[in-house]
């Protein structure tokens, strides 16, 4: 176990190094960082002086090492749009994105598993048909259209739920949460649902496929033959066995949810890192783009690693072989 874990951990480093390098390259070669700091009317001497101060005249690899060093200390430079440290900006908005992502992940998982089981067990029931058709539509509908539709119906036509923002938030240390106020819950509902839609259909289809397969397996047939209660068979034997692939896919989908949050946050003007990122693209704010890339890929890599480890623990066959390829 330790060996596997260490090997897995070691494989993270090259990945992070590559993304760090990409961020560094973006920061240095796209947009002129010196120009950004100096303003437009600086003289050539000012420029040379600042370049020397910041070590821009040093060899490339030394600059890169310095960048990594600063990044490890949490120093990602100053946003060229807002003029504040990038890390502060991202940390300020991270809670909003994480709350949204986790809640929609929870929606997607619970509804996806429930509907998946149902469509597998009662494929001909009306609800199953509706959810299968619905799932096909949900895969074909871009996330932002779902969001616009939800706003149109629930905010404009019915006036039940807010169309933007986070509602009232409560500060707990550096974390701000919207989950402790009524307006916060009202505000998160629509974005979380629209973000969950796509993942929900994926989980639904996966659970359904796995369930169908398991139901045809020998041990379920035996269990049936022995006359065990249906509920016990379905939920204790069958569902349990579908969980390994579901957990894996679900874990990976969490990363995807964070990425798609960019879109949802734009539609609902949700004040998270995704909206910050979109704005930084619009304003060519390279330090934020680079840092966002770095932090988000770190999150993805971390999730991947955790998923691998869970997988390793859940599936004894892997342990025999000695790890995933």
């Amino acid at each position, binding site marked *: 176990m330790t060996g596997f874990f260490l090997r897995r951990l070691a494989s993270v480093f090259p990945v992070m190094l590559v993304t760090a390098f990409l961020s560094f390259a973006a920061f240095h070669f*796209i947009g002129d960082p010196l120009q950004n700091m100096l303003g437009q009317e600086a003289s050539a001497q000012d420029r040379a002086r600042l370049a020397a101060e910041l070590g821009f005249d040093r060899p490339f690899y030394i600059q890169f090492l310095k960048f990594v060093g600063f990044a490890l200390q949490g120093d990602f430079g100053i946003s060229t749009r807002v003029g504040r440290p990038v890390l502060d900006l991202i940390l300020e908005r991270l809670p909003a994105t994480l709350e949204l992502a986790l809640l929609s992940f929870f929606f997607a998982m619970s509804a996806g598993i429930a509907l998946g089981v149902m469509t597998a067990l009662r494929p001909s029931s009306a609800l199953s048909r509706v959810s299968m058709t619905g799932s*096909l539509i949900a895969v074909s*509908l871009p996330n932002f259209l779902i969001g616009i539709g939800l706003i149109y119906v629930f905010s404009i036509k019915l006036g039940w739920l807010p169309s933007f923002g986070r509602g009232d938030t409560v500060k707990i240390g550096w974390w701000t949460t919207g989950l402790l106020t009524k307006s916060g819950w009202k505000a998160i509902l629509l974005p979380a649902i629209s973000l969950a839609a796509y993942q929900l259909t994926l989980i639904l289809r996966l659970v359904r496929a796995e369930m169908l397969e398991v139901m045809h397996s020998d041990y379920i047939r035996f269990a049936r033959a022995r006359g065990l209660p249906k509920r016990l068979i379905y939920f204790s034997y069958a569902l349990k066995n579908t969980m390994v692939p579901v957990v894996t896919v679900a874990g990976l989908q969490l990363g995807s949810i964070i990425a798609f949050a960019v879109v949802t946050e734009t539609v609902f003007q949700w004040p998270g890192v995704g909206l910050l990122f979109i704005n930084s*693209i619009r304003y060519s704010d390279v330090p934020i783009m680079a840092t966002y890339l770095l932090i988000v890929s770190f999150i993805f890599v971390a999730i991947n690693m955790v998923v691998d480890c869970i997988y390793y623990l859940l599936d004894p066959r892997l342990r025999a072989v000695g790890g995933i390829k």
Partner: protein
Amino acid sequence: MKRLTRKFAALFGSDIGHSYLRSPGALFSTMVLLILIAAALGAPLLAPQNILDPRTLDLLSANTPPWSANALTGHFYSFGTDDQGRDVLSATLYGTRVSLLVALVAVLLSMSIGVTLGLISGYFGGRTDAAIMRIADVQLSIPAIFIALLISGLSRTLLAPGVRDTLAIYMVILAIGISGWVTYARTVRGAVMVEKQREYVQAALMIGLPTRTMLLRHILPNVRRPILVIATISLALSIITEATLSYLGAGLPPTQPSLGTLIRSGQDFLFAGEWWILFFPAATLLTLALAINVLGDWLRDVLNPRGL
């Protein structure tokens, strides 16, 4: 239609042909898809207005509701017009054309990158394989939409404003194309590794067939089924990704609108009661993606019952 089916069947085995003719969903979505493709290809002929030429725009005919005549100019518009006097029907036709074009080329791009790397990786194995798969891992750990956004965003920063709009379409194709190769590569690699062990490959190697011939003539044909399935599904995904990029303002510009760009500008008028500017492009986008997905689902069931 029948000839086409037969050809299709000849290419992928007659069982498919049978299944196809017996699947109403697949048949229907093919029809829908063909109509949309025809409409997209024929946009310059079918569209009442050439929306790519700003000279044809007349501000006076702006904001006409669908299926009515403009109060000032008297022109009749079946889908209405937007705030610039652009005929929504024409815009939707041209938008479909751009969306389909971008998605198709992007899929071809990621397919060629993916298949090539997959073949190389699977056939040569060893370090080459390890390196390619490592890159694939990195890329797979970052969702495609995110990579596409990043490429698109960085290119906006890099390109001079004068050429930004003209090059936007290539940038979007590149962004979507690059972000989607991994699935192909992994599938092809797996298939190649299996095929490599077969007798015919061993025999061909023995008689000294060049590697390239080997890969292209003998191994590639055996992986075309899974490739087709992936390509179909990723076509729908590419259409959606492009629409998303354009919606976020990181895709195609208003002067060369795709369906996503049209939805983006239509959104501003939705609450003002001018729903048609958003509705027609959005409905077309949904129909397009849905038809392809139904087809993809069917293909997957027929070609690869164990799922991908």
